[in-house]
């Protein structure tokens, strides 16, 4: 009787074709002799057959085209963002390079009082730092003014 109970457990999976070869054969052998299990097995098979034959719902018209369009658009937008980030990173590095490269040029063009590596360089450094600070302040002021202007424009739009 233990065998019988065990087989009953496996009948649903057998109808689903989800058993290993050995298990399937074991089930087949048992139902060959047991009428009760045969009836149960047929029940499960009908259920499985019914599930297999469920009609397929039709997707709405134009789904493929809409999906394709949306995917293409989204990928393009993401690519655009990545490009913009790349450009900004490059520009920041470029800005710093210009800052550093401008120091010797400013020194040279202004005549350079002290030697390039001369220890008595406090004044020069102050001059260069002051120049750099002036650049940053100018940039900051311009950014603030532009941001304010945009905000005003947006509110009117």
């Amino acid at each position, binding site marked *: 009787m233990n065998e019988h109970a065990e087989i009953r457990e496996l009948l649903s999976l057998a109808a689903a074709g989800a058993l290993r070869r050995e298990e399937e054969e074991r089930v087949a052998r048992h139902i060959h002799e047991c009428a009760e299990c045969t009836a149960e097995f047929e029940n499960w098979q009908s259920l499985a057959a019914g599930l297999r034959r469920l009609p397929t719902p039709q997707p709405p018209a134009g789904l493929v085209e809409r999906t394709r369009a949306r995917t293409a658009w989204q990928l393009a937008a993401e690519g655009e963002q990545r490009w913009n980030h790349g450009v900004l990173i490059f520009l920041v590095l*470029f800005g710093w390079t*210009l800052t550093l490269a401008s120091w010797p040029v400013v*020194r040279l063009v202004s005549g*350079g009082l002290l030697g390039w590596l*001369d220890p008595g360089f406090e004044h020069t450094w102050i001059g260069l730092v002051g120049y750099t600070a002036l*650049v940053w302040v100018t*940039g900051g002021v311009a950014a603030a003014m532009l941001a304010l202007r945009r905000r005003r424009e947006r509110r009117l*739009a």
Partner: protein
Amino acid sequence: MSRFREELRIVPRNAWIVGWLVYLGLATLLGLVSTVGHDPGLSKMPAVGKVFFAAGIPIFLFMLVLLIGYVYADAKRRGMRYVMWTLLATFIPDAIGVILYFLLRDPLPTSCPRCSTLVKHGFAYCPQCGAPVEIACPQCRRAVERGWQNCAYCGTKLPISGPSQSAA
């Protein structure tokens, strides 16, 4: 890389000309200063260093000129105040003006499918001929973006994925 080439083509020819002139000018100046100039630090440099110095540094200025040229042409095609932006890009030092431009620039305008005038980003209908140019909210008719669930202006729930474009 091809994207880069595309963008590079926007730089107007004059900018290239000015750029080369600036490069040659600054390179010459720096060359003179490093060979016959009086700066003690510079004269101590080996010849290779001087070449690097005189020929290398002006490259950055050359690039800056091209960037300014790009700002001019790009601001123009986006319908922005291109004179103001070009001046900002030129006179705010160390490319900060250029950075500001890239951060704050308007998106590209589209062209109206019916009458081909340039239509600014964010418009739902062409101001010249009235043709729809962008997907619009069914309630308030303002331009909405793909992917929005609700209209950002009037709050109406938007139909999923099927854009409500009147004619197109």
